[in-house]
């Protein structure tokens, strides 16, 4: 090799200059960045950021995301909607409904003034068409209709005649729903955005994606209709045919695609968007601009829990299960970074509109040790090692290991946490070869009983293998009741299930939304089903152009 005298100096100098140039891009701005001015055409347009792909199809869904609910509820209107305060079902596309005496048949009367975005009347046949389509699709979206007679059989192919499903359009404005079992919550369940009607042209338009070129080809019955669609998002305008258009204060909604929640938050901060319905809240996040922004937080209707296989070893003894439940300190369990997102779960059902949560599992290590000793395992002596079986993707979660550590520290009970490939774990769970599993349960119905049905499942499908006839009786009885009477029965069922300690509630989850101060009318919803027609913008009045000045400047 030959060395030239100053080569390294020149190369070093060049690289340092380049490094300096690149490094400049890493320096945070020294002062607040400017906020973009709202375009004149966006004056009364609510600009919503979404990060997961959206499809203008109510019957396609991967996960009940807030942005998805906002999008679908902008374009389609189901039969009912839930009151933001009480959670009670309210008329939407249906004007009224009534139950048969045995609570097995629900008859809904549609609004005579309901119209599609092209002016066609919305009929009961459109709902039948939409719901049958839903039943023909994937199980994770079709199951919402399984309470309807023969719906599950039709979905699984056991019945191939749609007429066998307990769904009838008695006339253009009357829809009759026949159930397998009484289920008084069904009316509230019909507020699910997925249970939207389907115009006869929609399926073709969605399949051909013709709405990209002709937005009007997507015919919807919601408060807004599609005016533009491309890879950057969707633009909607208020539908003049919507029966409640007089009450809709927004001129339109624009759904803006962002690559991730962080970028979405920056779009709100930059004045390019007004609302980020779901964000990963970080307590030290600061907007880089001076735009007034509020972080909204709501408790999701779901629970993160450990499930005990009550047919295995010492877990057969309720005292052991209760000892494990009481040994956990849920406040300490939650990591500092997750505190904005996770809250301790003292019972199975979180707070929700019209129903505060219970406090059934307060940590008591002394009582936990006493119960374990009473069960014959003082200090964890002779206690066999338990297996907590988890899917591989949960390896990053600190909580299963934290529970295991706590149980060993407080009770001397050893729990082996194993992470397995999904197929292996499914086989293990199917064979019942586990002691504990860990997972999250999310409600799809705005009702506390929805979370409790996990304790009323047939043993062969239950992860806990726990069965309590009294709890099942209480939940069944609740399905015949409404209002406070029903809530009282549900609460009894919850207390019964928690007394059995087949599962230990650990944490509830909070969702966060970022909204500019201009957005008004935002409300908490346990299922993230905020309706865009209830929102409006409160913008400062634009100063009128001064006389003698060219407004273009």
């Amino acid at each position: 090799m030959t060395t030239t005298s100053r080569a390294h100096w020149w190369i070093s100098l060049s690289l340092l200059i380049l490094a300096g140039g690149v490094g400049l891009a890493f320096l945070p701005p020294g002062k607040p960045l400017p906020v973009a001015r709202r375009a004149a055409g966006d004056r009364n347009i609510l600009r919503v950021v979404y990060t997961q792909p959206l499809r203008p199809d109510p019957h396609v869904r991967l996960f009940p995301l807030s942005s998805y609910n906002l999008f679908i509820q902008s374009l389609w209107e189901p039969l009912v909607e839930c009151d933001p305060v009480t959670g009670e079902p309210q008329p939407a596309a249906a004007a009224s409904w009534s139950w048969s005496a045995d609570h097995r048949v629900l008859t809904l009367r549609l609004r005579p003034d309901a119209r599609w975005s092209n002016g066609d009347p919305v009929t009961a046949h459109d709902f039948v068409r939409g719901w049958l389509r839903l039943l023909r699709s994937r199980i994770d979206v079709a199951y919402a209709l399984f309470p309807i007679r023969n719906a599950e059989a039709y979905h699984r192919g056991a019945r191939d005649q749609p007429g066998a499903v307990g769904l009838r359009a008695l006339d253009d404005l009357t829809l009759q729903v026949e159930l397998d079992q009484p289920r008084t919550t069904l009316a509230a369940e019909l507020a699910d955005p997925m249970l939207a009607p389907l115009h006869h042209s929609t399926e073709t338009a969605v399949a051909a994606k013709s709405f990209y070129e002709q937005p009007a080809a997507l015919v919807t019955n919601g408060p807004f209709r599609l005016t533009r669609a491309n890879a950057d998002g969707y633009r909607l305008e208020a539908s003049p045919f919507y029966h409640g258009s007089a009450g809709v204060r927004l001129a339109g909604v624009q759904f803006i695609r962002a690559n991730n929640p962080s970028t979405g938050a920056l779009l709100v901060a930059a004045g390019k968007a007004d609302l980020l319905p779901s964000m990963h809240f970080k307590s030290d996040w600061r907007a880089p601009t001076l735009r007034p922004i509020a972080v909204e937080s709501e408790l999701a209707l779901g629970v993160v829990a450990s499930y005990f296989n009550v047919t295995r070893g010492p877990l057969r003894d309720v005292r052991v299960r209760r000892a494990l439940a009481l040994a956990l300190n849920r406040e300490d369990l939650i990591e500092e970074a997750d505190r904005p997102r996770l809250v301790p779960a003292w019972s199975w059902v979180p707070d929700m509109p019209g129903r505060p949560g219970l406090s059934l599992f307060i940590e008591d290590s002394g009582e936990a040790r006493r119960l374990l000793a009473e069960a014959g395992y003082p200090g964890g002596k002779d206690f066999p090692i338990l297996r907590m079986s988890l899917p591989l993707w949960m390896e990053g979660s600190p909580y299963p290991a934290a529970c295991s550590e706590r149980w060993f520290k407080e009770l001397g009970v050893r729990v082996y946490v194993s992470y397995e490939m999904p197929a292996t774990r499914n086989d293990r769970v199917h064979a019942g070869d586990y002691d504990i599993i860990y997972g999250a349960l999310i409600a799809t119905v705005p009702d506390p009983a929805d979370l409790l049905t996990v304790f009323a499942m047939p043993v062969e499908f239950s992860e806990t293998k726990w069965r309590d006839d009294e709890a099942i009786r209480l939940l069944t009885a609740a399905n015949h009741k409404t209002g406070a009477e029903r809530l009282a029965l549900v609460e009894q069922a919850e207390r019964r299930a928690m007394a059995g300690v087949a599962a230990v509630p650990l944490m509830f989850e909070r969702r966060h939304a970022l909204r500019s101060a201009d957005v008004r009318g935002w409300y908490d919803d346990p299922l993230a089903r905020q309706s865009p027609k209830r929102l409006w913008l409160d913008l400062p009045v634009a100063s009128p152009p001064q006389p003698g000045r060219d407004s273009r400047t």
Partner: protein
Amino acid sequence: MNFVNGNGRTAWWRGARPWLIVWLAGTAVLAAILWWDARAWIQGAPQATFRATKLNLWPLEILWWLFVPAILLVQKSLTRVDRHWRWAITLHGLLAAIITGLFIVAQAARLVLVNHLPASFLPVVVNDLRWMGGWSYLPALVYLALILALYAFSFYREWRAGQRLTSQLQVANAQLETRLVRASLDALKMQLHPHFLFNTLNSITSLIRNHRAREAEDIVAGLGELLRRSLDHRQEAMDTLERELDFLRRYFEIECIRFQDRLKVEFDIDPKCLRAQVPSLLLQPLAENAMKHGISKDPAARLLRISAERDGTRLVLTVFNDGPPLPRDEAALTRGIGLRNSHARLRMLYGDEARLRLRDNAPQGVRAEIILPFRTSSSP
């Protein structure tokens, strides 16, 4: 390969040119694909978005494609500072950091562009990427792996070249030894030539008859010395000019007896040249040629002069005889084994730095001239 001299740069450029053409062609194809894919967005079509273009979807692939020639060029340049290996490691580390930084900034710029954020948000997005886990250090690892691979390939190539050179040198050495042995054998053959021996022995007999025993003894001693030196030098490639001339003097002592008073040998030697290193038995074939084709062929010829002088960094050796001019037949000129052997040995030992010329010396005689680098045993 390096950029040390013009020839090196030219050779490197010749080697790199086909790859550069391939890269340019690839870049042209890539640009065409990207343009065709993004033409609607570039032309401002209302439905077109940057998000749907391959410019957005292929950022890493495009960046690597653009970076590769620059990386190769920088790696090639940094081999110049390889002796300063600490510098090289530092600079490669710095460059890996720069490339990683560029990828992060490019990723952030892509996010700014695709999400229609103001350009002033670029540093904010860069820092946001950090807590989102978007600061990928993979480019640094890829760069370092690439550099290591390039170094490994470069060292392997040099090692192979070294191996080839060693093999060539070994072959050359073997050939050289063969030539030396042949030269020794030629000298021995010359000395044991029946005619030469017969004449020498006759001369000795004549001297004894004339009671010139002392001279006879000298010739016998000279003949013995010739044989001994020939044998001694079979394994030595180089010797001093002084010893080489001693050898010639012994040879001429015998030849002078053969030619009686007709042969006049002159040595015109610069004393500074005596310690110069010369190939063993290099002058003897030339002297033999001068005797055989010069002095012997012309009864009037009688002078044979050996001279040595230093010309700067070169040593000039001359064997002159005043015999007949060289034959016009070129084949005859190159027929002599001794002369060919001397040529070959000079080429092997000195390459282009030495030469042997045989030419007529106007108005009379022939001159053999050897020019070779002036070196002594203490020279590096």
